[in-house]
């Protein structure tokens, strides 16, 4: 194989992407864990560590630009780098959503939660599983799996609607719970946005593999 050093650098770039994915997944997971256990210190740490995720994104972006400028990637290599540039922007925003959820935990503070957490952890786990599998699809160049992950976004949307409706009823029943319920709606909305970001990533995987730009999961509205 020719251009060994270049292909090695490309592989390293992919590994960096996975590292960033792990960082974001940890922030997502911890933000819900902190909410469940009402752990304010853990939430503060997530907020603080978001800077590290943002820094990682800049690092990867810089490496991508250097690769484009110095190695003239073509065809699938070019699509891979273009996909990485897009994916890191989505992952960085996912990190922000996790940070947002950590902030919500701090806002709720010592107040008890307005309802037990059942669907929220479910949404979070779904999002985490989708992220994990979409990154595997990226590494395996698996467009089929990426497309299937996009379809799962509907399940997350359904969970969000359920939580939203439930909290709305709670607020109507007991106006004292409006503040606490609003916080949870924000939180669920962040989780819903996280899953949307995963579908963006999946679309980039499809593009990288097939070379076709396509919106995989079209909104039903």
């Amino acid at each position, binding site marked *: 194989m020719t251009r*060994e050093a*270049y292909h090695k650098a490309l592989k390293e770039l992919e590994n960096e992407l996975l590292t960033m994915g792990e960082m974001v997944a940890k922030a997502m997971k911890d933000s819900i864990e902190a909410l469940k256990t009402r752990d304010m210190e853990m939430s503060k740490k997530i907020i603080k560590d978001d800077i590290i995720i943002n820094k990682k994104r800049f690092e990867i972006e810089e490496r991508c630009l250097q690769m484009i*400028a*110095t190695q*003239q990637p073509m065809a699938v290599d070019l699509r891979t780098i273009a996909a990485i540039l897009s994916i890191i922007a989505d992952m960085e925003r996912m990190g922000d959503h996790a940070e947002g959820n950590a902030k919500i935990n701090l806002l709720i503070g010592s107040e008890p939660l307005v309802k037990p957490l059942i669907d929220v952890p479910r949404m979070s786990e779904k999002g985490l599983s989708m992220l994990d599998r979409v990154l595997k699809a990226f590494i395996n160049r698996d467009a089929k799996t990426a497309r299937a992950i996009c379809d799962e976004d509907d399940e997350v949307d359904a969970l969000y609607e359920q939580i939203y409706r439930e909290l709305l009823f709670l607020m109507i029943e007991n106006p004292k719970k409006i503040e606490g319920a609003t916080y949870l709606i924000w939180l669920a909305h962040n989780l819903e946005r996280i899953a949307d970001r995963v579908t963006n990533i999946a679309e980039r995987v499809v593009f990288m593999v097939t070379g076709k730009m396509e919106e995989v999961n079209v909104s039903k509205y």
Partner: protein
Amino acid sequence: MNNAFNIEKLNVFYGDKPALDDVNMEISQKAVTAVIGPSGCGKSTFIRCLNRMNDLIPVFRLEGSIKFNGTDIYSKDIDVIDIRRRVGMVFQKPNPFPKSIYENTAYGLRIQGIKNKSRLDGIVEASLKKAAIWDEVKDRLHQSALSLSGGQQQRLCIARAIAVEPEIILFDEPCSALDPIATAKIEDLITKLKDDYTVVIVTHNMQQAARVSDYTGFFMMGKLHEFDITKKIFTAPSNKMTEDYITGRFG
């Protein structure tokens, strides 16, 4: 000291005509340094100063200093032949001698007076391996070097340069006569060579400089306008002229 060359206030003239104007540059050991710039910018003149190849031009005159591992290579008591052994060179057009592959590789060693066959065999094999051509020629070492393709001939010339155990290898447009696949092979080889050697490459092809080098110097009208880490030069050069050149706005 981490520099192979320390170049200070280098001025070169061909007769009255200045070719290099106050060049200051430090060339790192075991790294690839590329020199780019438009035709006539002085890049070939520059690289040929590093092993005193310009001495052969009668009107050539040099001011300033080029220190190679701390020693000024233009001082009076220097052994030019020894400098050229320690600073090898590969040229634009592959130039194998009309001899066998083996004899081409062993040429410099024979000139040095090495006659021991097993020693010659060992160095020839090691050099051809380092030049990534051994597998392609091991069964026909005694065939004419002229029977090889252009890309193979160029790698043979690299093996010939390596055989005399230089510290530096200068490449003067090594791929301009080669097709893209042969070019990629030479570029791969250059990347590997930096584990053992300091490499300086002059190239017209700035994409090649971007691909293979760690440091890049941009020459223009005999002046070194910018010298920096290659990644920096090709993503965010400090000098407007460098940016205009690498983005194709002139040159």
